[in-house]
Structures are given as C-alpha cells and as structure tokens.
C-alpha cells in the first residue's frame, strides 16, 4: 500500500515536473530583454545605482541564428569561441567594502578589481583552450575599444582550478589593473542594448555624471550552454550591469538636527544623473526602478518609527512619506524580504514601474530624509587588505591580512562536529613572473601568533612562475577558527630584472600585482524574497535571490622595480667605442713614433728659444710641489716634454671633473 502511494506520488511529481518544464519552454521560446535600476542609499552619504540589463536567447538549434534583440556580435563571439561562460568587467575606483557593504548580492557580484577583469570558460578540448583565449582577447579588445589583447600573452593569464570558481580546467582568468576606463568602453557596451542609451533606463547614463562617481564598474556576463553534448540547451543569457556610487548634490534641506547628527543628503534621479527617465525602452519586457533599504537601515527605521508612533502618517499629494523619509512618487509595490532565521532584519524594496511615463511626463524619483540616521552596511565575515613590506629594489614581501568584523553572522555549513567551529577562506593570487615569490616562505599568523601550515592550510596549489613564460599562481584554502580576530599571510619575493624591451612606457611608476580574490566559501548571500512568480520574471530580482558566494578583492599592489637608464645601451656603445678608438689611436701612434727624431727636434727648438708660456706651467707645478724649479736644461728636454703632456692631460681632466661636479 505504501509502495502504491509512493508510486502515485512519484507519478504526480513527474507529471507536475514535465508540465512545468513545458511551461518554461513556452516562456523561453522567444528572445527577451529587460531592464532594471536599483538605487540604494549608502551609509556614507552616497547613493549606489545599479543598472541591470538582461538579454536572453533561446537555443540556436530550435530558434535559428537570426535574432531581433540579442546583439549579433555577442552571438558570433559565443559561436566562434565556444564560450560556456564569460565575464568582462571594466572598473574604475575601488569598492569600499567597509562602508558600502561586503555581504550583499550586489557587492559580492559587482564589486570588481580596478581595471579590466576577464575570465572565460570554454567548451573546447583542453589543448585548444589557450588558442581560443588568445583569439577571444583580440576579439573583445576590438569590440570594447580596450587593450584586452594584452591578456593574450601567457604571462598575463592564469588557470585557477578551484579557488576562484570550480571548472574543469577550461577557465582562464586575467586582469589588467592599469586599464583606464572611460566612455570609449561604455559606448560599445551600450551598443549591445537594443535601445542603446536612446530610451529607457539607460537614458540616465549621462557621461559626465556617471564618470564623476566614486566607483564605476561596467560588467558583461555571458552564460551559454549551446554546446552541451546532451542537447539540453537553454540558450544564451547576457547580463550587463553598470554599478556606480554617486555623491548626491546636497539639496537645500540638509540641516543639523538637535542631536548634532546631520541629515543624510536627499537626492533625486535628476540630481544624481542630470537626466530623467522618459519612459521605458519599448523593447524591454519589464522596466522597473527599485529603491532598496538594507537590513540595518530598516531596523534603524523601525526604531525611529516606534518613537514617532502616533504622529502624523500622511500621504501628501506629491510625496509618499514614511516617518523618516519621503519619496516623490508612490511606489507601485513594496517588497519585503521574508524574515529568515539567520538574519537580523529584512530589507525592503520599493518598486516603481516606468511603464506609464513618457517624454512629456518623465519619471523623476526624489528621495528625502526627514530624520538623521546612522547605520552601517552588512560586512563580510572578514575584511581583507593586502600590502607590501620591505624596502629597496631587491626584495620585499606581500602580506595579506584578514580582520574579523565581529559580525553576528550565523555560520552556515560550518564544521560543527566535536565542538569546533572553522571558517574556510579560499585565496586566489596571481603574481607576475618578475615578482619571484618564494612560496616556501609562506607564514601564517593567527591572532598575531605564528601557526604551522598543517594546522591552518586545508588545501594549497602553487604553480611557480616561469621567467617570461608563466605567472605565479597560488590557490589556497585556509581553515581559521571561528573566533579568530585577525589572520595574516606573508610571502617573500625577489624582484626580477626585465629585459630593456619589456619595460612598459612609464616604467618608473612601478608594476602592478593584480588583486587577490578572497572567497568565503562557507557563506552565501541572497535576498530572501517571497517565492512569487511575478518576482521571478524580473531578472534583477531573481539575480538578487540567487545564492551568491561572498567574495572580496584586495587592493592592487604597486611594486617598484629597478628601472634602467633607458639610454644606457647607447651610452655603453658610445663609451666602449671611444675607449677602443683611443686605444687603437694611441697604439698606432706609439708604433710609428720616432723617439730619436723627436728628441733631436726638441733639442733644436730649445736651443732657439724657450717660450715663457711653456715654462710657466712647470714652474707652477713645481711650486705646488714645493720644489725649487730649475729651468729645463738641454739634456732633460725630452723628459720635460712628456711631463708637460701629462700635466696638460691632467689639467683638462681636472677641469672636466670640476665642470661635471658643478653642472650636476
């Protein structure tokens, strides 16, 4: 009987599953595009704006290779290089993990290292991966007007195996920390959107205002399983995000409150971007603006709300207001995070649909604080920083320090057996070959005490650098006790010498060591939104709901290397040649010199007259040597001639030395 029930249940389940699959297929039959913008006030008086655009493409074998929304160039890229997944980000500025948060979905997936970061997973046999990567870098560099082609050389990219993300060896990772990011990279990125910046939310991207921000990261993420052998392909998903941190211009209302704390600045779309939204992009499936108030802020608000209970709670004609803030447009929907056990509070999302706005009636959201509030963002379990130690041009060491944020995160998936609690941290570090790291010098300090490797390192993989061939790669899983206050890693290195051709144009600026990636493997961050179908349809929300690994990038290090004098080769050539020429000349002269003849000549000359001038110098010289000067007699004339010559040469040399000394 039980068996029967089970069978029926199983059958029902299968039926249901197949039905839902069929539903999904119907949904995914056509390409679609959607746009969204998320705004979030940050604790340090700044505003985070996160644009998210998603283009989805149904599988090629069902839908064909002609599209009406999906960008042709990206499709061709996927087809040509057999990409399974790719992420390219252009970033300027550094994400401030302490102030802007390190433990929310946006920070974990949109905080990127400065410059260009590119990683790609290829769906080709192992031996072809390198060739595909090289071609891909060239194609992307043409597509995005950037020097991504510098990632072509094998010294610039690495193959992380498990620390960055797990893949079967087909993942390549490379960064260009010094790439400058500007409009020439944004324009081709916008070209991939069907409406570009002509309509919809992307119309807000006024170049002067978005590049004025404190952080600017433009990202392109591509997922495809076109080449899966099992044929169960779900097409290509292209996510384009632009994350910026802006400082709102202080609008008039900012005043000092009685408590002494200042009011957070008020802002509106037009004050942040200098533009308003003139309706949605007609091609997008959904076009929404969200305002997010994060957990800690919400709990602050609740406190304020309780204090002010009973006071007026009106919705005036222009403003939708809450006790502590007001918004110029009433939100269409308020999405509250489902309270979950392991988080202290729940964040709130206000949804505004841009659907019903147009050029004549633009959408301009204003946000105004009424009460001064102080809150902090959620932090990652450990905050990471990396710095250089040592001085001089010979050697130094890299230190990575991890500091506990003393947060109340309940650690999920943590080893809890035998009463012990461990915190796993994955570290991925690529070091260029000219920084020769001695991996045996790795020292790990926990709470300022030296620890043995066996106790703390769970897994380590080191691939040493090869001169002019491969960069050094270190992947490591650290196991730290939960109560750790601070941990530090040090690695010593020697600075290598480069060939004169290998120096970049501005060699004296120093050389960059790309950011290390620190992954907190035990933690996953996501927003706990209610399992609502309408929310699923919005890609931004489903991205926020997905479990993201918590990761952090460290600073880029600048290592000064010994730089040669670049005119040196020519100087060397010149001075060597001069020495050789002098040698040859004097040798030749010595060979054809007739000593006897010269002697006779001088004798006759001396017999004629001894010029006063020629006598002056030896006189002076003699005086200097405090010897009585005797006029040259005939017998010693040849020796005095040589003597004179030496004096002349010395004089000239002395003058040269003096001149050199004073001129420099």
């Amino acid at each position, binding site marked *: 009987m039980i068996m029967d029930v089970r069978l029926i249940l199983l059958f029902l389940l299968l039926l249901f599953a197949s039905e839902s699959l069929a539903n999904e297929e119907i949904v995914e039959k056509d390409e679609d595009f959607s746009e969204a913008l998320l705004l979030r006030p940050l604790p340090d008086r700044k505003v985070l704006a996160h644009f998210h655009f998603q283009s989805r493409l149904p599988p090629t074998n069902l839908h*064909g*290779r*002609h*599209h*009406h*929304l999906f*960008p*042709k*160039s990206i499709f*061709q*890229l996927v087809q*040509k290089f057999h990409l399974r997944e790719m992420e390219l980000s252009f970033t300027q500025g550094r994400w401030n993990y302490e102030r802007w948060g390190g433990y929310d979905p946006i920070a974990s997936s949109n905080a990127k290292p400065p410059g260009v970061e590119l990683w790609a997973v290829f769906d080709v046999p192992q031996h072809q991966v390198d060739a595909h990567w090289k071609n891909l870098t060239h*194609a992307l560099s043409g597509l995005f007007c950037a020097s991504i082609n510098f990632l072509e050389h094998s010294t610039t990219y690495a193959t992380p195996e498990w620390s960055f993300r797990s893949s079967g060896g087909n993942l390549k990772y490379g960064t260009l920390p010094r790439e400058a990011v500007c409009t020439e990279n944004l324009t081709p990125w916008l*070209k991939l959107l*069907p*409406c*570009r910046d*002509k*309509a919809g939310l992307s119309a807000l991207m006024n170049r002067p205002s978005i590049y004025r921000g404190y952080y600017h990261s433009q990202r392109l993420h591509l997922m495809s399983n076109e080449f899966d052998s099992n044929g169960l392909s779900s097409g290509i998903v292209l996510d384009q995000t632009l994350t910026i941190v802006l400082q709102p211009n202080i609008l008039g209302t900012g005043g000092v409150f009685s408590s002494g704390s200042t009011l957070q600045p008020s802002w509106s779309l037009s004050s942040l971007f200098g533009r308003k939204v003139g*309706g949605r992009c*007609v*091609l997008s499936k959904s076009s929404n603006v969200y305002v997010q108030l994060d957990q800690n802020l919400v709990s602050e608000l609740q406190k304020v709300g309780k204090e002010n209970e009973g006071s007026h709670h009106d919705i005036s004609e222009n403003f939708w207001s809450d006790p502590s803030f007001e918004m110029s447009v009433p939100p269409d929907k308020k999405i509250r995070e489902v309270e979950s056990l392991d988080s202290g509070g729940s964040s709130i999302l206000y949804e505004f649909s841009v*659907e019903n706005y*147009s050029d004549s009636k633009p959408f301009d959201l204003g946000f105004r604080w009424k009460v001064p509030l102080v809150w902090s963002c959620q932090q990652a379990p450990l905050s990471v920083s990396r710095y250089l130690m040592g001085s001089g041009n010979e050697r130094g060491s890299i230190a990575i320090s991890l500091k506990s944020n003393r947060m109340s995160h309940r650690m999920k998936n943590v080893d809890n057996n035998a009463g012990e609690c461990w915190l796993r941290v994955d570290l991925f570090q690529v070091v260029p070959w000219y920084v020769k790291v001695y991996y045996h010098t790795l020292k790990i300090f926990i709470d300022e005490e030296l620890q043995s490797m066996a106790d703390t390192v769970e897994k380590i993989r080191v691939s040493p650098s090869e001169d002019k061939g491969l960069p050094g790669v270190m992947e490591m899983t650290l196991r730290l006790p939960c109560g750790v206050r601070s941990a530090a890693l040090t690695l010593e290195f020697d600075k290598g010498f480069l060939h004169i051709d290998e120096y970049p144009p501005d060699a004296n600026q120093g050389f960059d060591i790309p950011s290390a990636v620190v992954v907190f493997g035990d933690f996953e961050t996501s927003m706990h939104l209610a399992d609502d179908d309408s929310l699923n349809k919005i890609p931004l929300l489903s991205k926020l709901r997905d479990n993201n690994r918590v990761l952090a990038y460290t600073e880029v290090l600048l290592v000064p290397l010994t730089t040669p004098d670049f005119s040196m080769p*020519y100087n060397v*050539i*010149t001075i*060597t*040649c*001069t020495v*050789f*020429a*002098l040698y*040859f*000349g004097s040798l*030749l*002269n010595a*060979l*054809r*010199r*007739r000593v*006897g*003849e*010269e002697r*006779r*000549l001088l*004798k*006759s000359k001396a017999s004629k007259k001894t010029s006063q001038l020629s006598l002056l110098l030896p006189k002076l010289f003699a005086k200097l040597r405090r010897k009585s000067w005797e006029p040259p007699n005939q017998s010693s004339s040849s020796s005095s*001639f040589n003597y004179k*010559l030496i004096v002349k040469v010395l004089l000239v040399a002395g003058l040269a030395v003096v001149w050199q000394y004073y001129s420099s």
Partner: protein
Amino acid sequence: MAEISEAPAPSCQNDKKSDQPSDPSSDFDPETMRRTKPGLKRLILTLSVLFSFLLGLPFLLKSVEIYRSPLPFTDIDSLSAAVESSPILFPCHFHAVFVNFPATSSSSSGNELGFSIHSRMRKLFPENETPVCGSCNNNFSVSVTLDGSTLLNDFTYDRNLENFDEIWDDHLNSVLNKDSYTVVVVNREDVEEVRAVVGKHRHAWIEGRILKEDEPELLERIAEIFVKVFVNGGKEEGSIHGEFMPVGADGRVVLSFNLLNADPRDWVYDWDFQWIEEILLAPIVETLRPLADVSVESQVLYHTPKSSFSYWDDKLTSHVFSTKDLPFFVNSNEWHLDTSTAAGGRSKILQFVVYIPSSRECPLLLQLPNEEFSPTNGFISPMWGGVVVWNPPACLNVSESTHPHRQMISPKAMKKVFEIFTGQLRQLFGLKSDSFFAGASGTSILLASERGFTEWELDVLSRQHTCFNLLQCATTLGSLSRLVQSLPRMIIMDEIGKQVKFSLEAAKLTLRNASLGIYDAASVCSRQARSLAEDAFYHPSMMSVSYYSFEHCFAVYSPFFLPVSLHVLLAVLREWKRYKQEQKKYLAWTNVKI
C-alpha cells in the same frame, strides 16, 4: 697626436745631422738629402693596419646583415608586364541553329552563313581599341547547324502556353550543347512578329516568320546577341566597372542584412529571416559560389534615424527625400551596422538595409532627379551595399499607443523587398536588372532567373572576376617588389617568399586555364593568386616599422669607426708622405754622389 704630427716635416733637418755627423762630403746638404734608404717598417705597419681593417669590413657587414628571403623579382616583373600589356581574353564558341528553314530557302551553305556571322561579330567588337579585359578573344569560332529540326523532337511547340518561354528554355537547355553559346532561329509561318528571347542558360532564340530578304538583318541580330549579350553581359557604358567587384581579397563576401526601425516607439517590425534565408537567399548564394564564398547574417536595430531631413509634399501626402541628399541618408553614427567575426581578415561586407521610417516621416519616398519617384524606393552605394525604404502599411493611421507590439513584415512585402535587394546585388556586381535588352537591330527579352543570376551572366562575371583578380595580384606583387627593393634593410621572412612563389604559380595557372577556356578553374586560381599576394603584402612582419635601418646601424658603429678610421687613415697618409719625401732626399743624395 698633435705633438707627433708636428714631428715629421721639420725633423728632416736634424735627422741627417745625427745620422751623418762626421760626413766629410762637402756637397751633402742635410736639408734635402740623406745617405741611407728611407725605412719601410712604419709604412708597412700602418698599411697593414689599414688593410686588416679593410679586410675586416666585409665580415662586419656580413655579421650585421639581416635575413631577406630571395624574392623572384624577375618573375613578378614579367607577370605584371604580361598582364598589363595584353588583357586576358578567353576563347569562346558560338553556335547558330536554324530550324524550319527549307533547304532551298537558305541561299548559302552553313559555312558561308557562319563566316558572315563571324565577320559581322568582328565589326561589333571595337576595332582599334584594346579589348576589355575578360571578354572573348578575337579568334572565336562560329559554327552553324542548318537543319536543327531535331530540336523540336519530343516537344510540343505551343506558343499559347502561359509559360511557354520557360518551358522552351528548359527544353533547349536539355538538348543543346552547353559548352558554346547558341542562338536558335525558329522559322514560324504562323507568327507575324519576330521575337528574340535570351534564356537563363547559355542560349537564346529568335522565332517568327523570317523571309529570305530579312536574312542579313537576322544575321546582324544573331551577331549582336552573341557579342552584346553573351560576351559583354548586356552592359552599357556607365554601369559599374568590373574592377569594383564587391568580393574581398580572400574571395569572401558577407551579406549583412539589417532591419532598421527608425523609432520603435511608433512601431516595431520584425522579419522572419530564417525563412528569407532559406527560401529567397539560398539559391543566390549557391549561384554565386564559383565567384565568391558568400555568407549571410542579419540583425534588427532600433532607434536608427536617418541623418538628413525629408520634406512633406501635400499633393502626394507623403514625405519626399530627394536624390541629391542621398549621401546623407546613411547615418553612420546611429546605424551600428557592425562588422562581424565572419568577416575577419580582408573579406568584404555588403550591407543591405531595410529602413522603416518613423511615423513623423511616413510614408517616405525617394525622388529621382527627374522629379519622378523611385519605383524601388531604394538606392545602392557601390562597394558598400544597398538601402530600401519600406513604408509600413499602417503608416497614416498611427495608433497613439505608447507600447507598440512587435509586428511581422508580411512574406509578400518581404519578397518584394528581397527582389529589390537581388536587383541591387546584381547592380553591385555590375549587371543590369532590366528585363529586356535594346540593341541596334531590335529588342530582345531577357529571361530572369529565379536564382538571381543567369548562367551566361555568371560566365561574364566569372571572366571579369578572373581578370580583375589577376590584375590585382600583379599590382600587389609589383608594389611588394618595389617596396622590398626600396627598403634594403627590411627583414623578409621565408613565409613571404613562399607566398609570393605560390601566388605566382597560381597566377600562371590562371593564365593557362584562361587560355584553355576553363572558366571555373581560372576563377578559383585567380582568387588564390590574389589572396596569396595580399597575404604576402600584408604579412605582419612587413608591417612592422622597426626594421633595422641604416641610420640605426650608423649610429651604433660610428662612435668606433669614425675615430679609429681617422687615426688609421691619417697615419697611413703621414707615413706615405714622409716616405716619399725621404725617398726624394735619398735620390738627391745618390744623384750628387754620382
């Protein structure tokens, strides 16, 4: 140095004194004479130093020599001379078949008829000027079959059939020899007017009541069809020249079709390109295969206004865009007609654009200079592609909804647009798109192929293409050889040498194939020759600027060689001078002694 150089001249005076202080001879003048032979030791020494330097020089030059793969300069020159002096001409065969002519009615025998057609054709070829490259050479052959009634076997000759021409064309294709161009003359008593039709393959026919006295006129007409249509492709002066054939250097063409919605807020149109590609484009791509490797791609773009304005015409109730503004129609800032990864290297992209105007400029008509309206509502730009303006049917009754739905362009409209594109493609390849050919001796109907290009047109293109490729190959190789010879210190890789060699071989093969009349093989070989020549010319190592220049060499070696050579040369000069002087003195002494 200075002290030493002063030495020789005045030294002579005292020299002798010390040498011969006690010489009793009274006529010895120590100023001008000496008793001993001057020594050669120092002269030989300095000379040996100089010679060892001179001997070392070739070794030095050898050591700083750079690698230059030997290029066959003479072969290149002879190829360009051969290509430039005489254009490539192909052998052609012509065949005339007379059907239903009573044996008695034709006054002359087949040979005579053939000869008379031949002489008429010769007149049609331009006499004094050099023949156009890629046409037929002068020793073409004309054969005549007088009784071709076997052609009518198994065929019901019924002119009243609707698609008689097509059926008859297919029938002729199945019976006739495909190697030569054929004109079939059918004498029909029952048909009054004389009608000439050029088929889709390599033949044409003339039918009607042909009287005996019309014979010269008939022969004239046959000759004209042979020369003007089959050889020259029905082209006239002013059509696009063969040199501007839109085929990339690697023999590839990418046809990029773009649907531009000028303003998607008014309406959004989409097309079923899958269907278009399979049904409408596949035959054309297949037909062009011998000429070029054609690939097709598509995209739909939005927010793409044209860059110039049109004006509203009340009478026509439409917006009018005049031809003189056409250069400003294509908006290169907003129309992102990107290159594609399929068109890597040096292949050619032809852009075809369907422009859907926004509601503010709809319907949009293109006005010709003669005030009429373009029937196709499109234009081409040579070597770039073509544009067609498609006015949506809902042009005038715009619904004021802000959220337009995606609409499909109907297959019927799409078919029409792509017929225009086919025409534009033909024009880009330098062919006309008229359905008739007006010659001096009457008009002939040209049957259009559903594949876009008829067989005889392809022959013309293929001949021209071969010729153009070979010309281009010769020019490229010529410039390469000039460049290489003008930069004697440029490194030339072995690979370039190899590419040049293969390119020359392919060019020679092309010439042989062309002289044998194998069109396809000649076309393929010429393509290969050109692409190899271009590969050699654009080889990355050739493009690098950092070749080891003479100036560089000079700058590196001069700090050594300049001072050293000064020393060595001066020493030799001085010693030589001194030796001569002393020798004179000695001679003077010997003279005195005697």
